[in-house]
């Protein structure tokens, strides 16, 4: 007995319900087995194409940039800014180098430094800062020369703290002496410090006079 011979004896209502169910089933099969997979494949290919386009463009851009990056990497170490750092020879104290520069600047400005002491080191953004604190008595002209000499120093010296005190009573025809205290920092690269020597603890202030 065929399927049709099973169906035909049924009542018309049942036959119609069966036909409608078959229609619904056919639509579901068409949707699920044909349309959805085709749409998924097309969408997947479209997404892959967009990703590939993006990835390809990025890879080509990077590849095109490589020679320029090599050149820039080679040029980087020749940039003048590196001379503004303190190089740290192995076993040498950075603070001593800064003290030497500050004393040299003072000599150029004709200033006598009364006391110079190291201050606590700081580290920030790949930089290690070493400071010295000193006091000196100088006139306004000497202070100006000292500032100029400090600015023209080979290494970058940053004045983080400055105190200037002058007598409250002065004579009009006399350039009164100013009591100046400064805290000056010089910088090394953090990597240099790690490779070179450990961060110095705040030492006992050695009295230096020039």
């Amino acid at each position, binding site marked *: *007995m*065929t*399927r*049709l*011979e099973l*169906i*035909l004896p049924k009542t018309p209502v049942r*036959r*119609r319900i069966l*036909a*409608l169910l*078959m*229609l619904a089933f056919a639509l579901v099969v068409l949707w699920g087995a044909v349309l959805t997979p085709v749409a998924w494949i097309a969408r997947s*290919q479209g997404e*892959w*194409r967009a990703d*590939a386009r993006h990835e*390809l463009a*990025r*890879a*080509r851009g*990077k*590849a095109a*940039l*490589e020679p320029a*990056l090599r050149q820039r*990497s080679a040029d*980087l*170490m020749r*940039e003048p*800014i*590196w001379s503004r*750092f303190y190089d740290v020879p192995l076993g040498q104290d950075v603070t001593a180098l800064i003290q030497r520069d500050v004393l040299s600047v003072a000599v150029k400005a004709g200033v006598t430094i009364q006391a110079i002491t190291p201050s606590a080191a*700081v580290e920030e*953004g*790949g*930089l290690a800062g070493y400071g010295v604190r000193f006091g000196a008595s100088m006139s306004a002209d000497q*202070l*100006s020369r000292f*500032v*100029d000499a*400090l*600015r*023209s120093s080979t290494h*970058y010296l*940053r*004045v*983080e*703290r*400055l*105190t*200037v*005190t002058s*007598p*409250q*009573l*002065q004579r009009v025809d006399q350039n009164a002496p100013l009591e100046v205290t*400064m805290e000056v920092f010089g910088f090394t*690269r953090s*990597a240099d410090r790690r490779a070179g020597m450990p961060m110095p603890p705040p030492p006992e202030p050695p009295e230096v006079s020039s």
Partner: protein
Amino acid sequence: MSLSWQVLTSRWMPALGELCTWWLQELREMAEVLLGRVAPRWVTRTMVWLGPHSGSISVVRGAQRVSVSPLPEDILGKPLETGNVLEVPKVVRGTRAVFAVALEYVLTHTLTLPASVAADLDEVVSLQLERECPVPLDRVYVHHRIRRRLAADRKIEVEILIIQRDRVERLQALAQQWGLRLVRIGVGSGDGDVAGNFLRTPQTTSRRRLSVIDRRLARSAVALAALFLVTLAFHWGYERVVVGRELRRLAPSATAADRLTQQLRTQAAPAEALAALMRQSDALDTLITLTEDIPADSWVYELEVSTQGPQAPRIKLSGFTPVATALVAQLQRSGHFDEVRLVTAISAGLGSGQDRLQLTAREASRVVASYSTSARMPAQGSAQP
């Protein structure tokens, strides 16, 4: 493989074909019922019943049947005379018409055949009728249908209906005179059911079947569709291969560029940090700025400037000025300082015309273009107490 294909074609395909035919017929009937309610004009049919003793014309709209006119007795038995045309109501003119003739006008015959001949049933029935039919085949119309399949015996029962050709031709002429569109001539059971269709001869049926060219065209279409799909799949696959090859080719350079970028970023970090720090003003810059902003009639005897890294320098100063609040306002207006606070302000002495003040301020955020070593004086005004 060939065996299963044979089983598929000989057993399943006919059954599937029958099932599909029934299904489509059922759907069509449902659609007709629906259309009969929504747009009855579209499904109106004229049913002409021709019996040996009576006849009738009725209009069928879906399940509704309305008798519109009786017909004279034995209209098929009499010759159709010109000028004596039977009038029919105008309502049926132009409609599709089904003629149902009584069983008395038809010869019926049943054949039991092997199921394997189902595919070539037309030819087999013709051969059988040539031997068994009492009337020459060119004078009759034949309709046959498979009435039953005997699965156990692998046989089929074929019902054959035979009608004289001149009767069919008479009905065709009658339909033409009445202005009907004749779609079917079958055998009526009297209760409205019509079996068979003598208009569907093997010749007309063969017109619906696919010819060799049709089959070739269909195969070509399927082959072209398959070729299109294969081409598309190949294109997509080839695209992926080419893009993958290009990405593999570029990968070393891109990786090297990434590595160099990272290396440059690491190497340049201290320089960038120092450059950023150099762009921020330090205590000496603040001293120079303050020297420019302090008016000539004011005098600072104690100044403290402190900064820490990128933070804006803060100042604390003590000095003399004619009017303390005026100095505060001037520093605020300069734009170089903010948060200017007057800590103390007292008179410097009777008759001095000066205030002794102490104030704090913060240098407004700014970027130092360069470290100029121009000869600017530190914070000392020209006025001396």
